[in-house]
């Protein structure tokens, strides 16, 4: 049974694709066009009631929120492909810590910058220069802390590559 990943192949869906590749899990993509509002249509909302991207279907099982999807496959296939969760409970704890840092400190300003600089012009919507400036400042401070951390360890959670690093691989190839 092949895992189906719904969404475009950039942004949050991309993290899921990269994770599945690292874990050597077969998948197929089902394109959902965010610009055409396909993620707000009733058929899609049956799978993801918040109208967000991505969602995966694995046989009868449906799962959404990219970070939950990453955790599930990284754990289910722990012994296959790249190990993404560290070797001990304590290493896993640090992976979780930096995953949460990404969710609450890194992603929000990046999301604002992408929406205001890349997406709004494409949709013919106005950008908010105040939001851009505030987001740049916030992101700058976060990246200072990442810089400090990465001067001490090879990767974010330690000297091992993990979900915490994979999660920041998110491009908007629009």
């Amino acid at each position: 049974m092949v895992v189906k990943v719904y969404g475009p192949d950039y942004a949050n869906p991309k993290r899921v694709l990269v994770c599945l590749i690292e874990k050597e899990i077969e998948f197929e993509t089902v394109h959902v066009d965010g610009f055409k509002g396909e993620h707000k249509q009733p058929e899609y909302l049956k799978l993801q009631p918040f109208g967000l991207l991505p969602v995966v279907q694995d046989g009868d099982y449906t799962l959404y929120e990219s970070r939950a999807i990453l955790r599930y496959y990284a754990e289910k296939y722990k012994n296959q492909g790249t190990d993404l969760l560290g070797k001990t409970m304590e290493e896993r704890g640090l992976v979780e810590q930096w995953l949460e840092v990404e969710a609450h400190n890194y992603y929000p300003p990046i999301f604002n910058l992408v929406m205001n600089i890349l997406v709004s012009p494409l949709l013919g919507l106005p950008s908010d220069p105040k939001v851009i400036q505030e987001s740049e400042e916030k992101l700058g401070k976060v990246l200072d802390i990442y810089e400090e951390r990465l001067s001490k360890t090879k990767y974010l959670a330690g000297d091992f590559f993990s979900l915490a690093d994979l999660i920041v691989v998110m491009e908007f190839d629009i």
Partner: protein
Amino acid sequence: MATGTVKVYGPPMSTAVSRVLACLHEKDIPFQLIPINMSKGEHKKPDFLKIQPFGQVPAFQDEDISLFESRAICRYVCEKYGEKGNRELYGTNPLAKASIDQWLEAEGQSFNPPSSTLVFQLAFAPRMKIKQDEGAIKQSQEKLAKVLHVYDKRLGESRFLAGDEFSLADLSHLPNTHYLVAATDAAPLFTSSPNVSRWWNEISSRPSWEKVVELQRTA
């Protein structure tokens, strides 16, 4: 493994700190709460920044580890002390755990931003004599109403968010919702929604949460 070594740093009034305390109570883990006076800027001092470089609360220490980010701390506590207290809190099989993670992420990504803004604007800004931002309040109320609409449908089909058992996903909602229902006029967003209201009454009356509320009251 040694217990009695868990330390949590931060004020119990903080929503993120109280999230961790609720989890520790659910797991029956004794802990030491070390207060951090944020109005005196203790969370931005060099000694604290060593254990939490973003200058946020809480920070957590156990015999083998120093951690921050409340939801990461909760997950770690559930993994490390799996056999203690509420064993179902983070699921007992991979699919249950994935469902809990899904709703924990929904909380963190969709529920937390607008509810945190409302907690600050409606419960804390007046106390701190900070001018309220009416635009932010309106926008957050609209966003939160949409999220709670999805929750109400879900909670009409399922007793708790991730399934039939109380989990970390429900627990994670306790801190913000408590303030909004107990101390602000955003309460009707929750109380007028039949399934959300039923769920809130059930999760907020758990002894673990009542202990946290009592600590907040007496701190």
